[in-house]
Structure formats: structure tokens, C-alpha cells
């Protein structure tokens, strides 16, 4: 892999680290499998890109893009909590609706940001080559994001949210308002994903209506890889392992795509991702079974 390709891999890895944290919040903390992220990643990018093109400050645009994505999470939570629509289905409905909304926001299938100012523009004056600058910037965003998420989950409020995902009845008996925690959790999760979308649009120079497809699977892959690397109970380590998992996933994918003898094409990405996630999901179970079998064999 060339240095340039490696930096690109790192950059995407850090950005999707934020996605992984969002997915971790819903899938692991709240036990609420939320597929809204496929739409909210694009929504964050679309709102941010559109506002930047309209001449708004990139930082303000990013903030608004993040908030828009967070509100998509609230819609999913509302469908689920208020009307008892199954969480998966509720999130699929929001995701489907977002596809149209994203097109409407942009007014066309994609928005180019090549010539526009971005969050990175103020740092160009430092004279660091753009390809390094981008990586440093997104790494900074991902790490700060991770620290904030880890801090949040260790607060009284965050602990209450974890209790909601773990045992609703116990949470309620201890005076925790369950629904409120789900709303806040989904807003946070989708906000993180929307922020990732906004960063992606600004570092890659475009927002596209199809850019969010597969976000959930990539995020989940990063979470699972991170979990299998670090067996720990420390929230900080778990959250940071989302970033590590995301980067490793990108490295694995780009190596597979670049290895000529495997004969993959760039368009094979989604199949590779699905296979990788399936393997990561299956592996812990298989390992347990092998171990159980081995133990049996020894006894006989």
C-alpha cells in the first residue's frame, strides 16, 4: 500500500470510528438495533454540504448537520416508543424517508465541495500538506468524540442509560425514566453518525445521496472487531476500540481490494464487508463450540 493510500485509509477509519461509537451506543448500550444511521450519515453530510455551498460558516454548517441527524434518531425513537413499532422496522422507516429528504435537502443527487471552504480551511495556513492535515484533523475529532462518549457513559446519566439497555424493569424501579434515555441515546448516536457524514463530505469534497448505504454494517464491523481485540470492562477502552476497530477494518478491506492475486474490484466492497462482519459475528460462537468440544474430548 502506498503512503497516500494508507493515509486515505486512516482518514476514513477515523471518520467511521465516530460511526462505530454511534452504533455502539444503540446496539450495545441501549440494545436498540438502529438502522437509521444509513440515512443520518447522508443527512449530516447533505445538510452540511448544502449550507456550506450557500455560504454559511463550515463549523456552523457541521453543527446543524449533526443536529439534523440527531433529530432523525429522535424520529425513530418516537416511532418505536410512542407507537410500539418494532425498533428495527421503525429505523428502516426513518432510513427510507431520509433517502427522499436527503435528495430534497441537496436538490440534486450530489453536492460538490471541492472549491468551498471547509472546517479544514483555517488549518491550511500551517503549511502542513493537506493529506497529513486531514488525517490529523479527523483523528483529533474521533479521539475527542470518544473521550466525550466515554465520559458521558460514566456519568450518573450515562450509567442510567446503560441500565435501561440492560434491565428496563430494574431501571424503572430505581426511578429512571426509560423513554427519555432512549430518546437521548438515539439522538446522540445519530448525531455522532451525522457528524461523521459531515466530516466525510468535507474531507472528500462531496456529499452524495448514496454515500450512506452500508453505514450500519461498517459501524457494526468496527464495533465487533474492537470488542474482539480488547476484552475489557473499561468504557473508555471499549469506546476507543471502536476507532481501532474501524481503522483495522479499513486496512483489511483495502488490503483485500489491493491484493492483485485475489482479483477483487472496488465494487466488491459491500460483499467483502458483509463477509467480514458475518465472520466476526460467527467466530466467537465457533470458538466456544470448539472449546466445548475439546473439553468433552478430554473428559472421555
Amino acid at each position, binding site marked *: 500500500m502506498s503512503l497516500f493510500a494508507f493515509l486515505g485509509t486512516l482518514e476514513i477509519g477515523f471518520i467511521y470510528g465516530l460511526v462505530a461509537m454511534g452504533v455502539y451506543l444503540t446496539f450495545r448500550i441501549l440494545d436498540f438495533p438502529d438502522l437509521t444511521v444509513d440515512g443520518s450519515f447522508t443527512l449530516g453530510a447533505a445538510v452540511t454540504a448544502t449550507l456550506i455551498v450557500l455560504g454559511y460558516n463550515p463549523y456552523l454548517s457541521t453543527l446543524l448537520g449533526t443536529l439534523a441527524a440527531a433529530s432523525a434518531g429522535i424520529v425513530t425513537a418516537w416511532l418505536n416508543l410512542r407507537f410500539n413499532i418494532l425498533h428495527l422496522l421503525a429505523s428502516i422507516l426513518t432510513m427510507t424517508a431520509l433517502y427522499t429528504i436527503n435528495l430534497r435537502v441537496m436538490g440534486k443527487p450530489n453536492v460538490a465541495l471541492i472549491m468551498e471552504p471547509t472546517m479544514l480551511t483555517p488549518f491550511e495556513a500551517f503549511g502542513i500538506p493537506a493529506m497529513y492535515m486531514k488525517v490529523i484533523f479527523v483523528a483529533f475529532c474521533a479521539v475527542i468524540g470518544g473521550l466525550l462518549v466515554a465520559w458521558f457513559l460514566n456519568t*450518573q*446519566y*450515562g450509567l442510567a442509560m446503560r*441500565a435501561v439497555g440492560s434491565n428496563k424493569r*430494574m431501571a424503572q*424501579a*430505581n426511578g429512571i425514566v426509560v423513554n427519555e434515555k432512549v430518546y437521548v441515546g438515539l439522538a446522540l448516536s445519530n448525531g455522532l453518525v451525522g457528524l461523521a457524514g459531515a466530516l466525510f463530505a468535507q474531507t472528500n469534497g462531496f456529499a452524495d445521496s448514496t454515500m450512506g448505504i452500508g453505514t450500519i454494517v461498517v459501524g457494526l464491523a468496527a464495533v465487533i472487531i474492537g470488542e474482539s481485540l480488547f476484552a475489557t470492562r473499561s468504557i473508555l477502552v471499549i469506546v476507543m476500540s471502536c476507532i481501532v476497530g474501524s481503522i483495522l477494518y479499513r486496512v483489511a478491506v483495502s488490503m483485500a481490494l489491493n491484493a492483485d492475486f485475489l482479483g477483487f474490484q472496488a465494487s466488491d466492497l459491500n460483499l467483502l464487508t458483509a463477509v467480514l462482519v458475518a465472520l466476526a459475528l460467527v467466530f466467537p460462537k465457533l470458538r466456544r463450540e470448539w472449546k466445548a468440544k475439546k473439553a468433552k474430548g478430554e473428559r472421555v
Partner: protein
Amino acid sequence: MIRCENLHVTFNHGLPTEKLALRGVDLTIPSGEFVTVIGSNGAGKSTLLNTIAGDIESTRGKILFADRDVTHLPATGRTKDIARVFQDPLAGTCGNLTVEENMALAYGRGKRGSLSFALNDNLRKIFKEQLSRLNLGLENRLSAEMGLLSGGQRQSVSLLMSALQPSSILLLDEHTAALDPKTAALIMDITSQIIKEKQLTVMMVTHSMRQALDHGSRTIMLHEGKIIFDLSGDKRAGYDVKDLLQLFAQARNDGEELDDDKLLLGE
């Protein structure tokens, strides 16, 4: 003090499966009284407890804590006054949080969660102290995952958790039923200690008539959603399981035999 006035609860109202779970319960429990509640399956014991806790909304009637009407307050709004321990040892704690995290949750019961850290050294000290009362060695396993503990250990921790935050009412729903006799005895022992220490108003649902007579100062029996007898004072002191059964038969007054073995068995 807990007061229930003409409490009715109907499940599946208007449907063929309609069930009148509570049919006019009038009950006043003065502060500091320990009431044991018995009755056969489906008598309404758990419904009564869950209605007082706010999990179930009453169809008719009133519930008051002291002089405060809480009839329409949801369960989370009542947790300032009420602590609970469930029958299922897994229900009272979060299996994938640590012992100290579970205790921190109970420590914050009835308060709004703030954005300050949920755990600190001061709290850990308090938790350690509390856990050492159990003599189970749990004081050295603060950061162990709750799911790794045995059912009895988890129930013991649930019990301690119920007393971490001052409350006036303790609701125990067959909290020793799922445990082996030795652990059940230990839990009952600590329960009595905590109740005495904190001077709590207690309702304990139990399947065992023996346990109902041995603990607390008053026993009520529910049948088909009504209180069929209410024993306290000297009269209760002289009673044995046999007398309770007789009383039950009299109250029923229709010659039907008590068919719930669980009531007779149990220690």
C-alpha cells in the same frame, strides 16, 4: 404510611379474557409496620404490590402515601418513597454492569441523574461497607460483573441496594422464593436487620405461611382480589399454620379445599 381505598384493578377490560385482579381492597398500613401478604396463585398479591409500586394503574380507588395521593403517579415517580426487591434474582440488578455500578444506580434512586461521575472513592467505600455485612466476600468484588454472581448473591446485593437510599416503604415480592433454604434464611435475616435499622413500612408477599407468621407484625390474606382476613397483635401471635388454613376455609365458606400445595409446603 400506605393507604389503599377501595382499590380495583381489571385486566383486559371488556374482553372475554377480562380478569378482576383486585376487587375493592381497603388497607391501611401505619408507618413502621411490617405486613406479610399471603394467598394462593392468582389471588392478587403481586397485583396489589405492583399497583402500590405504580407498575399497574388501578381501575378504581385511591392510593395514598402518608397523605399524598399517588394514584396517578407513574412508577418512576414513586421511587423516592418505595424500594423494591423482586422474586427473580436477575430482575433486581443489571447483569452486564458491575456490582459497584449497580449499587451506584440504586444510590441514585429517585434522584435525577446528573452529569457528574457515577462512581467515586467515597461511594466505593460506602458500597464496600454495605457489602461486607453479607459475609459473602463481595466487598472484594466491586468491579466484578453482576452476571458472574450466583442468584443468591445477586438477590443479596439487590436487598442491600434497596436500602442504599432512604425510603419509607419496602416492597418484597417473594424475594426468597427462588433461593435455596440456606440462602433464603440469610436473605431473610438481612431483610429483618435492614427493616429494623431503617424503620421501614414493609409489605412482604410470600408463598409460605410459616414465613408469613414468623416475620412482621401483621398478616393479611388475599383471595380472588379481596382481603379475606387481617391478623395482628395477640391473636396473630397465637396462630399456627393450621389455624391459618382453618381461617382460610371459614372465610371461603363454600367448603372448597385449599388446593395450593405451595402454601402448605415451604419452610
